[in-house]
């Protein structure tokens, strides 16, 4: 998922900022990381309007994030920022160097993609249609990891579904089904074919089945 790290070092740019260098790849400009960060913001600023949150793929030492926060301060905007960084060492070093004193920023470091999609904050953020920005050097370096994040396909088997169910009645109900079938199969094969709806949750499930097959703009149909 993440590339094998052969070498890791922290170098100092020509302008004096610290920069992580992995397998010989500089995650920030070797000359002027601050200017590079300013360019990053300028290039992406048009993507930010009308969105309440931003997901940034790649932390590095956070210069681009700091620049983004400064820009938002100038424009008076408040957005929540989520940063995903696959490399724990990079994150720990950035923290130790005092580079992560950032407001309204949540950092997810060294967390599998699978775990990320279980995180309620990330899910809430994704539901609100965030702006997703890639830090170019980090994105290129961890291409597989980030591609997997962007193209993730959740397992829909009941045993993978149950951990998401917080409702006790529903959890008990679903745990009675074969854990290797999907929720769709429960809805369309099992419950829909029941001759007698002997569990009250059956009605809730059937309501959900009709709801989840709607498109959001569709008007509820009348029963014919």
């Amino acid at each position, binding site marked *: 998922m993440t590339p094998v790290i052969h070498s890791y070092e922290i170098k100092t740019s020509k302008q004096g900022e610290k920069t992580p260098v992995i397998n010989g790849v500089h995650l920030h400009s070797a000359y002027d990381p601050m200017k590079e960060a300013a360019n990053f913001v300028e290039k992406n600023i048009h993507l930010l309007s009308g969105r309440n949150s931003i997901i940034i793929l790649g932390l590095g030492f956070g210069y681009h994030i700091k620049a983004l926060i400064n820009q938002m301060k100038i424009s008076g905007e408040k957005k929540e920022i989520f940063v995903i960084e696959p490399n724990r060492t990079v994150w720990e070093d950035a923290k130790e160097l005092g580079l992560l004193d950032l407001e309204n920023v949540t950092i997810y470091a060294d967390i599998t993609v699978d775990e990320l*999609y*279980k995180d309620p904050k990330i*899910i809430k953020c*994704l*539901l609100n249609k965030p702006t997703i920005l890639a830090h170019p050097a980090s994105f290129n370096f961890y291409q597989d990891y980030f591609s997997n994040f962007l193209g*993730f*396909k*959740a*397992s*829909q088997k009941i045993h*993978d*579904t*149950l*951990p*998401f*169910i*917080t*409702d006790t*009645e*529903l959890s008990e109900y679903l745990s009675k089904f074969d854990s290797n079938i*999907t*929720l*769709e199969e429960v809805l369309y094969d099992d419950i829909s074919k*029941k*001759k*007698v*709806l*002997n569990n*009250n*949750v059956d*009605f*809730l*499930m*059937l*309501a*959900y089945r*009709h*709801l*989840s097959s*709607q*498109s*959001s703009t569709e*008007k*509820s*149909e*009348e*029963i*014919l």
Partner: protein
Amino acid sequence: MKNILIINLRRYGDILSTGHLINSILTKEKDASISLLIYEEFQGITKLLKNISQVFTIKRNDILTLKKNALFNDGLAIDQFAHDINNLKKINWSKIINYSNDPISSYLTSYINNLNQSSFYGVSYNHHNLLSYSNGWATVFNDILPTFRFTPFNFVDVYHRLSETIFISEGEKILTRPAHNKMAFDNISKIRKSAGNGTELKIIGIQLKTSDVSKDIPFGEIVKLVDLLLNNPEYYPILLVAPTEEEKSYANRINKYFNNTLVSVEADFLALSSVLLNLDLLVTPDTVIKHLADLLETPLVEVSLGQSPFFKQGTINPHSIILTDLVSSRNFRIEKNKEPETNITGHDIYNAVKCFFDPRLDNTLTFTSKVSLYRPIKDDVGINYTCTSGTKDHLFDLSRSMSRVALLKILKVNINTKIHYQNIILEHRHKLKEWMETQKIEISEASKCLLSALRNLLSIKEKKAGGKDFAHSLEILLDICNTNSLASLATLIFRSKIDNLSSSTMEQNIKDVELLLFELKSNLQIIMESTRELESLFYEDKKLETQRTKSIEVTGI
């Protein structure tokens, strides 16, 4: 305290029109606490409704995003849904009214009802996953109104009937802000008195846009209407604009034709209520604004275009007017956002405005060919619509009026049928014979099909034949459901029941079907009886007419 839950999983207009039912319930049951269950995206409109205890919401958009996007586990979507519904479980509901009667609301009605053992109104599902109807009006709402072309009842009346509530029109149903009311009153009063000659101008608000282009009054016709109103010294038009860039620029385009002299009022829903309260008349093509005006008792000219099914959901204010293209030529399933194809002109709307202020003009003003003017009238059942000017659609209205009487008789509602028949004869005399002949043929055909089905069922019972012939005769019988004849009302009721039979044995099933066929027979007889009653009154009336003519001839008057 009685906790009443109204499940309404429809859109803005339908949620708003719940205000009539809430008002009627609370007038009778003062200690009741009424809550709504709606989709979260329509929550804003509930701020206008008075007397709602709680609004529960289903986060439909979140649920659908979680469900449709492969990134997320489906558990997130269903858990959100369960969480939304969980809030309802904390209350002991004594009454659940399924207002939307769609599959989701019907399953939810069953789910909550099973927890509470409350009484439900409308449609729900039973343990055999079959529909269960609270009463005959639920069948009308669910199985007749969506199918039958000649809508006999308005939704508001049906909602009241199915929830066994008496309609009460008096009472405040909408929340307004005193500051908005004062501002609207002051500003509109100034305009009203601006004629300068001591007379007061009639202020006519024109609402410009709907959410669907096919329902909009064409731009050129609005300009024509404004021009005609401005040229009448008694009227003063003002444009009502929602606070969106699209509407503002639309209003500006209209205003340019009048050298930017028009008054336009920009208001959100909350402020709009105060404006509507101060108008003499509203002209609107929009269903949501129409429902709002009805709840505020502001009279309106409803310009019914596109998909707006006015017999089902038209204005219920007896002072209002509805302008429509000839109903039999209207396509109520027209594609959304398609430019409207209408014969209604700005001049027709202007004439409707004049008819509103002087109903005698209904008989003298002319409208474009194939444009009809209807007025809501209150009869002993509720709101009915009568065409008072323009092109009359006799056969359509005859079917509508007679289906109303026939259904009321089937539902055993006590009405004075004679008055209904007399009105029908008065309005459609010259088309009656033709219509009655067609209906009698249809009823007789339906009866033949019914007898054939009964015969074939009997053969199965006596083990003389298999089910093939019966299935075929049943198919022919159910085809009548699509004929839109009076007889189809009986078969539609029959279909709703036969679709939901849950007999566990063959013998029981045959018995149940037989009972339903006899019920169908009795309903067809009621329909035939209604047609005959109408016919006999018609000939009686004709005889009297002939005698009158003869006596006039004899006396030489």
